[in-house]
């Protein structure tokens, strides 16, 4: 079909405006990260007066960025991997079997996802503090405590997405493996999991991203030594004297790997997310 001229013009104008809106902050982040300090202390400049990489060097000593980075890596990786492991088992059960309580389980998983985080944060905080007093096990301020709270959002999401994804893996595959002498768990490990790898990786990445950006739990449940990137950087950025070129360099550094992973894998996520609603 040939597009009429007015539509082609509307397309150029509309997409350009939306593109400028989408990329504006990316441009500011990118150029400001390469500016010397005086450039970000006066009126905003569109181009750096000279290019410098010193913000990428200085940022490590202005704030304890290395420590934040390690904390975020440990917490986000553990929470997303643990969630996906637990969720895979549950998703296989939900996808392949009909049993009493199945619906109660899926409804619970589904509905806990729409609850506001603050609803879990308050009691978890009180429980952590009291548990520490009573048993000496200190979850408040620890990475383990944060990992547990992160599973409040990574786990239901992973169960939901993986159950939908496993439904798209044909049951003939299971049956073929069973004919070859595998039990249900053998079929699961040898056939179903390998067939679901793209979905598993996509869910893993997305759970990691969510944990990486999490702010609510981390702002309350961490201390100086366990602070994550999100809380550390945001806390620094809302102060009065800010080295904006360094903070832009730090933001860029912690964004690129995550954003690249998402852009590469988004089509698997979309397939999982829309599989049910489009039908």
């Amino acid at each position, binding site marked *: 079909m040939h597009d009429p001229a007015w539509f082609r013009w509307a397309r150029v104008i509309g*997409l350009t405006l939306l593109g400028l809106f989408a990329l504006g902050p990316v441009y500011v982040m990118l150029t400001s990260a390469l500016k010397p300090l005086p450039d970000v202390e006066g009126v905003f400049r569109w181009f750096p007066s000279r290019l410098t990489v010193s913000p990428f060097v200085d940022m490590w000593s202005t704030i304890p960025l290395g420590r934040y980075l390690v904390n975020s890596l440990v917490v986000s990786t553990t929470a997303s991997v643990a969630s996906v492991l637990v969720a895979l088992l549950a998703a296989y059960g939900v996808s392949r*079997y009909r049993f009493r309580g199945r619906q109660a389980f899926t409804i619970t998983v589904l509905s806990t996802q729409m609850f506001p985080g603050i609803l879990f944060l308050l009691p978890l905080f009180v429980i952590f503090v009291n548990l520490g007093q009573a048993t000496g096990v200190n979850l408040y301020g620890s990475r383990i405590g944060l990992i547990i709270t992160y599973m409040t959002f990574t786990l239901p999401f992973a169960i939901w997405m993986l159950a939908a994804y496993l439904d798209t893996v044909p049951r003939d595959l299971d049956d073929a493996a069973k004919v070859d002498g595998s039990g249900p768990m053998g079929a699961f490990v040898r056939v179903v999991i390998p067939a679901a790898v793209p979905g598993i990786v996509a869910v893993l990445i997305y759970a990691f991203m969510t944990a990486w950006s999490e702010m609510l739990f981390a702002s309350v449940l961490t201390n100086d030594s366990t602070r994550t990137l999100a809380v550390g950087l945001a806390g620094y950025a809302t102060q009065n004297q800010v080295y904006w070129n360094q903070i832009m360099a730090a933001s860029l550094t912690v964004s690129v790997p995550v954003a690249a992973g998402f852009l590469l894998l988004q089509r698997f996520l979309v397939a999982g997310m829309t599989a049910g609603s489009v039908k």
Partner: protein
Amino acid sequence: MEADSRWLTPPEPNKPSLPRRERLPYLLLLPAVVLELLIHIIPMLAGVGISFLGLTEFYLSNWRAAPFAGTGNYAIALNLNGATGQALLHSFTVTIGYTLLVLSLSWTFGMTAAVLTQRPFRGRGLVRTVFLIPFALPVFASVITWNFMLQQDTGAVNRVLLALHLTRSPPFWLIGPNSFFSLVIVAVWRTWPFAFLILTAGLQSIPADLYEAAALDGAGILGQVRHVTLPLLRPVNRVLLLVLFLWTFNDFTTPFTLFGSAPPTQADIISIHIYENSFVSWNFGTGSAMSVLLLLFLLLVTGVYLAVVRTSGAERRA
């Protein structure tokens, strides 16, 4: 963004299987059920319990000693003659306005972009990737960038406004009445790519021959959008709007990164308001009562919404 693009997919059951190994599914679910109990069910019940206690910082490390408050915390939260109740109502109103604005703008931008990129043209793949970037960046990193852009003296936004002669003196964006609009703009920037992503996927499931048939009937591009695209996207929109609503309403990261723990009153979003009430003024009893009220409100909205779309869907089919 805590939360996420979840719930878009009701798991579609495979063909029911013969339950030969009755115990296996329960064993498979066991770890998930134990965790659900520990991180969701028990904390939630504890939260409801705390909402009936006078739990302040003095009793924090020994909550059993906290005095029973009955429905006192709820009375405080809902008393519109008291300062706490008024502040909560104000925050609730701000959040509703914020949510409706972000929801409608994000959907409109996402829908426009999805329709404009529906038919192939040179550079379409690049455009789609560019549109997804705001959603792919970690929220805190991009909102920190917005924070820099919205600075009164050194920000890019005021630089643009001055260059276009839209203002004579650079306004403040992060304090005062403007802070509400700053928050809306940042949230829309972050949210519309998600609407675009989902709507694009929805458009791809519409068979091309429907458009051809509409074109043969003399429908132009706008006619096709109205008579083919919008009706067939109804199921996608139904879920998308609910997800966007819950997401925006519960958003904490965006306002917290933009304003810190004490936002300007004009941008006092409910999640931050409850947070401040609990962790800045250390009153967990009223904080819990407010979060239970918030949950009840969200359940009510979701329930009514689902009931309405279900009846309208049934009428359409009948």
